[in-house]
């Protein structure tokens, strides 16, 4: 490209920037907020490699190298938090097909009124807050007079203390999530199914396909691209069990099964104010998640035509 053409391009680009100044104004609030509250903290991550003290500030604090990472790797909590986090997220990952099955089921319901009522009612739990869900669990799963206690009582058995057991923590965590979100998570698959061309079903009927065959050879392939996209995104969060629910469900009885990385980061950072140590654990977590995301996306791109980028 010669010089004159290049400068012409630049002029045109600048012209377009100037003409579209309104668009940049629309972007401005979001960009500023991200710069301050997301990108500035990313710079602040360097306290993970420093002996941070608030008085000296981020730049003024002395370097500590990998001290805090080593401290975490050698700590008693390292294997516990990693194990719990991995266990819960793999467990919850395994429930990934449930909304797909759910969507296939809803899509088969012919009675329109029933279908609509069914959908609305199964979406409801999604709107309940985490605090209330955990409160519900405590009420319903109480071994004494909770629903589960009474159910066991009918058979003359003594109910297990589900909320006070570290071995059962992951099950309670994952299945209550399934209860809460399956209906809602299926919306996206239902949208994909509603895009199926009806003539496909007609053609299949003419060819004598059974209902099951239509599900198997029309519906499921239709859902695959959506499922893979969501699957990849899920893997990116594999080492990230959300703080909110785990923290609320924690108590002294189940702590050895319920301490996950995010709750540990909170306790170390804000409750015992070990800023650098907490930031180091957090950074370690983020890095692993990112590596997983890139890895899985690469695998997805290799073996199918669907990937994130």
């Amino acid at each position, binding site marked *: 490209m010669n010089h004159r053409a290049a400068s012409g391009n630049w002029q045109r680009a600048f012209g377009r920037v100037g003409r*579209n100044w309104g668009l940049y104004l629309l972007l401005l609030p979001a960009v500023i*907020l991200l710069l301050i509250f997301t990108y500035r903290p*990313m*710079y602040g991550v360097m306290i993970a490699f420093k002996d941070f003290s608030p008085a000296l500030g981020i730049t003024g604090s002395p370097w500590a190298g990998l001290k805090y990472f080593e401290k975490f790797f050698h700590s008693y909590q390292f294997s516990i938090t990693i194990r719990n986090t991995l266990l819960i997220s793999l467990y919850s990952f395994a429930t990934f097909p449930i909304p797909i099955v759910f969507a296939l089921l809803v899509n088969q319901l012919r009675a329109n009124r029933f279908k609509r009522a069914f959908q609305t*009612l*199964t979406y409801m739990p999604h709107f309940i807050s985490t605090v209330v869900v955990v409160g519900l669990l405590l009420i319903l799963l109480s071994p004494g007079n909770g629903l589960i206690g009474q159910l066991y009582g009918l058979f003359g058995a003594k109910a297990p203390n589900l909320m006070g057991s570290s071995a059962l923590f992951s099950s309670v965590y994952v299945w209550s999530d399934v*209860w809460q979100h399956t209906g809602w998570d299926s919306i996206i698959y239902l949208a994909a199914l509603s895009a199926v061309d009806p003539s496909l079903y007609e053609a299949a009927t003419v060819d004598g396909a059974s209902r099951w065959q239509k599900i198997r050879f029309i519906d499921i392939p239709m859902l695959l691209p959506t499922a893979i996209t969501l699957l990849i995104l899920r893997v990116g969060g594999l080492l990230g069990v959300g703080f909110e629910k785990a923290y609320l469900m924690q108590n002294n009885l189940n702590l050895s099964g319920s301490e996950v990385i995010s709750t540990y980061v909170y306790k170390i950072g804000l409750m015992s104010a070990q800023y650098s140590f907490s930031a180091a654990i957090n950074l370690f977590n983020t890095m692993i998640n990112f590596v997983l995301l890139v890895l899985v996306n690469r695998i997805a791109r290799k073996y199918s035509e669907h990937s994130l980028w």
Partner: protein
Amino acid sequence: MEATTPAPPRPKKGRSSDALLEALLYAGAAIVLVATVYPLYFIAIASFSDPSAVGNGQVWLYPRGFTLDGYKELLKHANIWVGYRNTILYTVTGTLIGLAVNVSAAYALSRRDLVGRKAITLFFIFTMFFNGGLIPTFLTVRDFHLYDTFLVMVLPFSVAVFDIIVARTFFRTSIPAELWEAAQLDGCGNLRFYVRIVLPLSKAVIAVLALWFAVGQWNSYFNALIYLQNKDLFPLQLILRDILITNQMQSSMGTGEAAQIALRLANMLRYSVIIVSTIPIMCAYPFVQKYFNKGVMIGAVKE
């Protein structure tokens, strides 16, 4: 009315495997429905029942020993109502700020003639996978003097990149480029076009995002837990956490008559507070339901 609805076409000779599938289908749907709704229904009827009847397992299908004591108990707790007020304020302002920030950004990013679009999009997407983490973010909020303020609940974390992507896809597919070209010829600037033409045409996506923001604000407790100290600023969810979770663990310890009465009241309060705090946000959904059509939702997966 039902008689006038035409029956859906059915195959004349149903295969036996299809009939079996149909039976299994409705049986499965019924089980799922009961399992989903019953816990909520139980809380609702328990909130109107005598707590000892609930404790004995007599309350299954309808309230026993009808009482409104749980709701009366609710009126005695001033902090619940302060929390309620705060949550309403956070939800309304948070939703308005969220819409203003994200819908505007999404529209700008949807325009293919935006110079630097790729780089700016990357700037947004990057934050979905990377962030500074709890402590560096906390320090930043403190440096900007937002710790323990009303503003921290509604402003700093109002950018929602996923929502921006959904709205951007919606704009791309439903606002034709010719519209902008025509408006431009008439001397209409970007901002006027956005406010007068784009927004009125985008009610569906705005309604959906408003629901997401409102539900998120109403239900969140994390930011309040981290960034608030002043009890007068606490949202409902933090108060609920005390009533439903922190106190539950303590109250199950006590014995004796006074403890029994306190326990009884605490139990009733627990049911009524769940109902009162959850109903408003559940009522929001039906208003927005019609917008959850394939147009908006497919946008979420495509890009």
